[in-house]
């Protein structure tokens, strides 16, 4: 029987789709690795566990794998993605709900290939596209650290993903296209410190997960590595040559910033970056230094820096609010972290996106929980949208020599909605 031409095309397309899905299904098929009896603390050397603790801090494991107010590493934190809501899993050594029955080989496979012990494909919200670069030795230390944490019984929460993404083997197609397995191969053109930095930044520390824009399939866009993008309701600044920092970063200033969470010529880490710098306060100086050297290299051809062009005040209302409410700290004699950052140095004022400045002015700055740190009161209840608009128009013009951000008020309303949720 002769089919019309359209019919041939439909059948052809269906056959192709079936073939691709079949290949994916086969690729996605991974064996379960045998369950083990949970190891005891005595099974690991103390210095391996200690090294694992530092690596876990470098990798930022706890911030994602801990729900607000919940037990460390017990999972349950919601991660909102454009595809739906994913909940982090329990990585304590609980045999029922955690990774207590995972062998070191199973743990290494999860890190290197994004597949869990039972052979299921993992969502790349777990950044195995970076963790794949981690060495066997470091995976072993991380494993030793996690397996010696207190086991917590906490069942994983159900992800809220639509069809077809809730079918995990679809991820094989994603991996085929976007995943490049490690481990890290040193670049002999650079020295050891640079290579250590590249290994950490691109691997365990997964900086690109926030700082690199993603494509519509949720993969980092290699053409825009570290070009800066929105992440978790904050803007992760460009950390390549597109950096908007007013004073160019160098390895020394970056190193101090990463350890302390603030730098007097740059400002303070906020939002998700504050969690990063909290963690980096606990890693060896040499690792912070290596990250700083590599990131300074990434930013080395930055052209945006330089003294701001002097601009006449463009909003008298904004100028008055700045003088009355902000200048005491931001234009006073007290340096960071006791006083505020000088706003002509702030990337929040000169940068590509308004959201960091809005978040800070509305909600203020709080020190890390249980620790000393910069502090600023929020002005959400006292500044109206119009007053905020005047203030930021003034700050942007006076301190950065730039026009106001487009759609500013919409961003303000969005931020107010978020803090009321």
């Amino acid at each position, binding site marked *: 029987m002769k089919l019309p031409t359209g019919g041939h095309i439909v059948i052809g397309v269906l056959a192709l789709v079936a073939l691709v899905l079949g290949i994916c299904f086969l690729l996605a098929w991974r064996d379960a690795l045998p369950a083990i009896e949970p190891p005891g603390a005595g099974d690991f050397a103390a210095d391996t566990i200690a090294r694992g603790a530092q690596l876990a801090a470098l990798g930022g494991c706890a911030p994602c794998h801990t729900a607000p*107010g919940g037990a460390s590493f017990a999972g349950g934190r919601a991660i909102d993605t454009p595809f739906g809501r994913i909940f982090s899993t329990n990585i304590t050594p609980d045999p029922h709900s955690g990774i207590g029955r995972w062998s070191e080989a199973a743990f290494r496979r999860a890190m290197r290939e994004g597949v869990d012990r039972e052979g299921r494909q993992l969502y790349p919200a777990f950044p195995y596209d970076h963790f794949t670069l981690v060495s066997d030795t470091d995976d072993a230390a991380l494993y030793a650290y996690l397996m010696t944490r207190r086991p917590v019984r906490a069942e994983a929460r159900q992800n809220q993903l639509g069809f077809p993404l809730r079918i995990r083997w679809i991820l094989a197609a994603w991996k085929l296209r976007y995943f490049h397995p490690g481990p890290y191969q040193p670049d002999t053109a650079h020295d050891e410190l640079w290579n250590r930095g590249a290994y950490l930044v691109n691997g365990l520390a997964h900086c690109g997960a926030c700082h690199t824009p993603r494509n519509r399939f949720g993969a980092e866009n290699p053409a825009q590595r570290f070009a800066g993008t929105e992440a978790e309701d904050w803007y992760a600044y460009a950390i390549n040559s597109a950096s908007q920092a007013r004073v160019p970063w160098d390895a020394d200033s970056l190193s101090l910033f990463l350890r302390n969470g603030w730098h007097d010529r740059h400002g303070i880490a906020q939002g998700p970056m504050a969690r990063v710098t909290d963690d980096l306060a606990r890693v060896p100086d040499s690792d912070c230094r290596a990250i700083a050297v590599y990131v300074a290299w990434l930013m080395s051809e930055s052209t945006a820096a330089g003294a701001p062009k002097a601009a006449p005040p463009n909003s008298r209302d904004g100028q008055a609010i700045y003088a*009355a409410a902000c200048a005491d700290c931001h234009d006073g004699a007290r340096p960071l972290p006791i006083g505020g950052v000088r706003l002509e140095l702030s990337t929040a004022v000169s940068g590509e996106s308004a959201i960091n400045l809005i978040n800070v002015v509305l909600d*203020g700055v*709080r020190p890390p929980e249980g620790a000393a740190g910069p502090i600023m*009161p929020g*002005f959400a209840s*006292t500044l109206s949208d119009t007053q905020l608009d005047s203030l930021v128009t003034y700050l942007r013009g006076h301190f950065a020599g730039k026009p106001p951000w487009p759609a500013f008020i919409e961003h303000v309303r969005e931020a107010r909605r978020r803090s009321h949720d």
Partner: protein
Amino acid sequence: MIELTVNGQTHRIDADPETPLLYVLREDLQLNAAKFGCGLGQCGACTVLVDGEAALACVTPILVLPGRQVTTLEGLGGAEDPAPIQRAFIEEQAAQCGFCIAGMIMRAQALLQSNPRASDADIRAQLEPNLCRCGTHMRILRAVRRAAALLQGSGAAAFHSPSAKSAPGGSEAAGRNGSGGTEGSEDLRRPGERDLSRHPQQRERPER
């Protein structure tokens, strides 16, 4: 001249527009519940409500306030007619030196106005910016929970412990009840009296 609406009354204030609201409340309007703690918006002792939301009066210049509704502790109620939240703080004897209490009450009030069914976690998160150096946090938390129960009208009697005192008369305002210490008693000055002296003997102590 700047027009300010405080506790429902409109005042014309002759002050520099940059003046912090706290100074105007204390010096011009003799509303002394809000305290000067740090002056940097870091301790919460100066907390008042602006359009129903908690605001730090020490870092709020009056120039942003025309057209807004400011509420201070005095606006909630007085010794004769304490608001539910003031009653709850008195019944739980939440104050020790009392310096932070007006701010605590105002921030808690803002929470309960928007969410009368606030959970313990909500209360703790809301009060986080306010410091108490005496360490009466547990009593403050109990007071806010009690206030939530009072506001929900779920029968104050059920939450009224037999040993708790009822609202005392005599002190000028319920929020000042706990201000027995030398710092807090500063605010017992009479209308018009300037806030200069730091000698507690010059003022009467509140009756309990």
